[in-house]
């Protein structure tokens, strides 16, 4: 009996009473599904932090505390840069689907550059905040939420660099774009997390 393997069986092979076959289902989509499940878990982490944030905010007299000025410059810069990174990551994904590995490398190199810019802006937001983690509850959440996003950015930027490098070496033909798609999803998700953070910390920062 044959022990040859093949990729996902066709419907005909799956019919009742069909032949006994050795099958090796494709794992390419698995990369995307696994990434999306991790992203779901990630959003739950942020949801729990925001639940604590709004509960503490609701029980505070002044939010943010007196003397704390909530600027809009850095959040605006971070938001625009993160979105530009998302465009670049999506460009890389489109290129991968067309088997254009040169543009995969360019797209992720650009996205990594925007990621570094986001990290730089967030770092300066933390170092120039004028208050600390222990100053007041707003300070705790400010550092926690910025830090949470910064950790994501610092984890994804090397990943994008790695994918760009591997694309140069021709590792992502159109038939194997799982790694490219997963990296793009990771960046889009981190941008989505940022939207929620900026909404909580800046747009809904004051008592009605």
């Amino acid at each position: 009996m044959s022990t040859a393997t093949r990729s996902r069986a066709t419907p005909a092979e799956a019919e009742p009473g069909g032949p006994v076959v050795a099958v090796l289902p494709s794992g390419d989509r698995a990369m995307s599904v696994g990434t999306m499940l991790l992203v779901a878990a990630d959003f739950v982490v942020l949801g729990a932090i925001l639940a604590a944030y709004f509960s503490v905010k609701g029980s505070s007299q002044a939010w943010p505390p007196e003397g704390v000025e909530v600027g809009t410059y850095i959040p605006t810069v971070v938001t625009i840069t993160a979105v530009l990174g998302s465009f670049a990551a999506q460009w890389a994904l489109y290129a991968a689907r067309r088997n254009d590995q040169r543009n995969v490398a360019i797209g992720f190199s650009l996205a990594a550059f925007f990621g570094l810019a986001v990290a730089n802006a967030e770092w300066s937001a933390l170092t120039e905040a004028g208050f600390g983690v222990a100053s007041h509850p707003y300070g705790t959440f400010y550092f926690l939420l910025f830090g949470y996003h910064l950790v994501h950015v610092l984890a994804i930027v090397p990943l994008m660099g790695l994918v760009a490098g591997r694309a140069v070496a021709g590792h992502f033909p159109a038939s194997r774009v799982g790694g490219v798609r997963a990296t793009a999803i990771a960046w889009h998700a981190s941008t989505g997390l940022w939207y929620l953070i900026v909404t909580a910390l800046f747009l809904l920062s004051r008592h009605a």
Partner: protein
Amino acid sequence: MTALSDHKTIGKLFMALAAMGLVVGIALNLPVGPQAGSARGFQGLFSASGIILMFVFVLPTWLGIASAVGPLQVGARRVAFPRAHSFGFGLFAAGAAMVVAAPLVSDDVRTWNLGVAMPSGAEASGPGPDLLILGLILVAVAAVATMVNILTTLLQLRTPAMALRRMPMFAWSTVVSSSVMVLALPVLIATLVMLFIDSHYGGQTFGGDEGGNPLMGPRLFWFGVTPFAWSLVIASLGAMAEIVPVFARRALVSPARSAGALGALGVLAFAGWGAEVTSLGSARVLLALGALAALAPVASVVLNLLATIGGEASKESSQPRDLKAMPVLAVLGGLTVVGLALLAGAVAALNATGPSRAGYFGPATHHLLYFGIPTVASVAATHYWAPKLWGRHLNDSVGKLSLAALIGGLHVTFLPLLVLGFSEVTGGAAIEPGPLLGISNLGTYLLGLGAVLFAVNLLTSAVAGWGRQAGVDPWGGHTLEWATTSPPPPHNFDLIPAIVSATPLLDPPAVAELEAANS
């Protein structure tokens, strides 16, 4: 594929780690020295020793069985992310070591009960608290990563034609329980990170001079751990529903109802979290109704199991019914624990705003539901799948002794606490706690004996290779894992039959073809 990226190896490592966690967790609950004969009893489920039982025994047991058996049941040749799987185990082992070390390093954390209040100030800093908090974070992150891996494998790498409706009951329960875990454990991770920032960097999330909300810690904690604890019950019920039909020599009665019940339990697992949180006031009544509703699917699965056991064997079955085999004995004994846990859970839910949550009733109920059910199910599952995973049967006599000690221990430990608690619930005549607590303490020793016997039996079989050698299908199993050699090759299968039902090995012509191929 290296041995350490083989999902079966990782699964076995998780199971070995869990066996050691069981012994340590119960040892920490043993009433010894000045505590012997005192009113110690089991404290909150999420006291330090309870945390070890939940996170270093029950959790890795099911991570291990799901890792090793899940991919085999769906005809996958590997997990979706093999390297992440071994990395996840490493992370888990490091976290588990820290969690176990915490109460040994510091007496402070022994008195913690994270379900009641988040520790603060000096109480939350120092090597003991640090080890416990960081260890739990690592364990939870590793569990999420492992379950994402298993869930992706079950959803994406299953063999063609294995639609969700054709998935074996244990694989389906793993899909449900891993989904619940992936959505619940991140809440616990976030809570612990905030607690760590509070204790180390002067953060003011759960307290502090300038504000913070001390009520929020226990709320978030229970929102995370209640569904997580239920997810372990879901996997346990799935394993029971897999084992019973094999030895009853017939298909499971109403498999769709059981699968639906497990799915419903996955949703209802999130409904009863707040019944434990006293600060929620009248909202607890609604949440207690959620906790009560979650018991219904459990009862439904149990009734299906009883109907399967009570029915006639299938005429097509070539083997006689065998309800005295160790795996099914463990399930039958386990059903007594499930029955007691359901009863206690119903009383606790109906008295959500009463005194049942305080004192002895709440912790006893939690231990029976979230520790008792998964423990006996894990004994059943280990005896059932050991021949497949490492090609050796566990010792039957030692197994029966450990089972008797564990089931007896669960009843003897927690029944007296339920009786004591029930007198508080009903406001009846006060009962002198001394004698009942003495009986409960004896039960703890019985649990300890069962744990040691189980761990020794598992480790000598898996590591030292003791026990009878197993064939391809020693039990007459119904599902794909029994279609390959014992233990399976690194790639799991040479041949996989076309799947037409959730019990492919009962479907001709696959049987003859596979037997010929595997012989």
